[in-house]
């Protein structure tokens, strides 16, 4: 049995009341306004999320102390249609090495009726996070809230 492509990718979509241009802008230039706060790998106050807006551009966090953490790399920059990037962070959410194995996220912005936009996100090549995957499994074995939650989640899926 090979690992099916389906099992190594996540696909999500959501329709927003905004034009593709606005959706693209908020997704890329205002990432810090919506990104779940506990999911910054960099610590400290005043964390901003910055993207260099071109192919090969760095995606990084910077805090008030001026510390930086690069967590992604732009693969496709085609506003307002497509934004794709390599994701360097493993499931343990530690600060990644520059050459960390990367999965890929592709976000497409498609106009639908009533001036709204469908935003589709595909996060694939997740098997690239081999090492992080193992750490995740180790973490699941620890007696803390996350482990418990993950086990409950896994139980629901079984």
């Amino acid at each position: 049995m090979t690992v099916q492509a389906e099992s190594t990718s996540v696909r999500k979509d959501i329709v927003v009341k905004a034009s593709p241009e606005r959706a693209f802008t908020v997704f890329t230039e205002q990432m810090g306004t919506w990104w779940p706060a506990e999911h910054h790998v960099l610590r400290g106050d005043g964390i901003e999320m910055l993207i260099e807006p071109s192919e090969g551009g760095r995606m990084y966090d910077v805090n008030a102390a001026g510390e930086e953490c690069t967590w992604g790399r732009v693969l496709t920059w085609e506003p307002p249609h497509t934004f794709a990037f390599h994701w360097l962070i493993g499931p343990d959410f530690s600060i990644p090495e520059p050459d960390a194995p990367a999965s890929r996220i592709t976000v497409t912005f498609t106009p639908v009726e009533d001036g709204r936009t469908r935003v589709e996100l595909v996060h694939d090549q997740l098997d690239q996070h081999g090492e992080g995957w193992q750490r995740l499994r180790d973490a699941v074995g620890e007696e803390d809230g996350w482990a418990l939650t993950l086990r409950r989640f896994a139980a629901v899926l079984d």
Partner: protein
Amino acid sequence: MVSASLPFVVTYQSPAVRGLDALGDPTRRRVFEGLAAGPRSVGDLAGDLPVSRPAVSQHLKVLRDAGLVVVRPRGTQRLYQLDPGGVAAVRDYFDQFWTRALAAFAEAVEETEE
């Protein structure tokens, strides 16, 4: 929800998490990568690697103990394969994460709408 309760700082600092790294050994990583395309026997794997068959068996044991690889019989052979449950855990994790992140994104977009 998984991502809502994820204390990533604790996870990040945990010696148990950082200390155990079955893929840190280069040969073991090659054994692991040798299974990427599908299940294989020890002998088959050893044919591709500059190490003995018993050494491959030992690496496979470590990978099994780490939950990265599973073994199952096929006829008279024992075939090793990547543990699909391992990848599934990562996938489930990101599935939850993006559900939450996109919902927050939609709110942010609509708040900024003129």
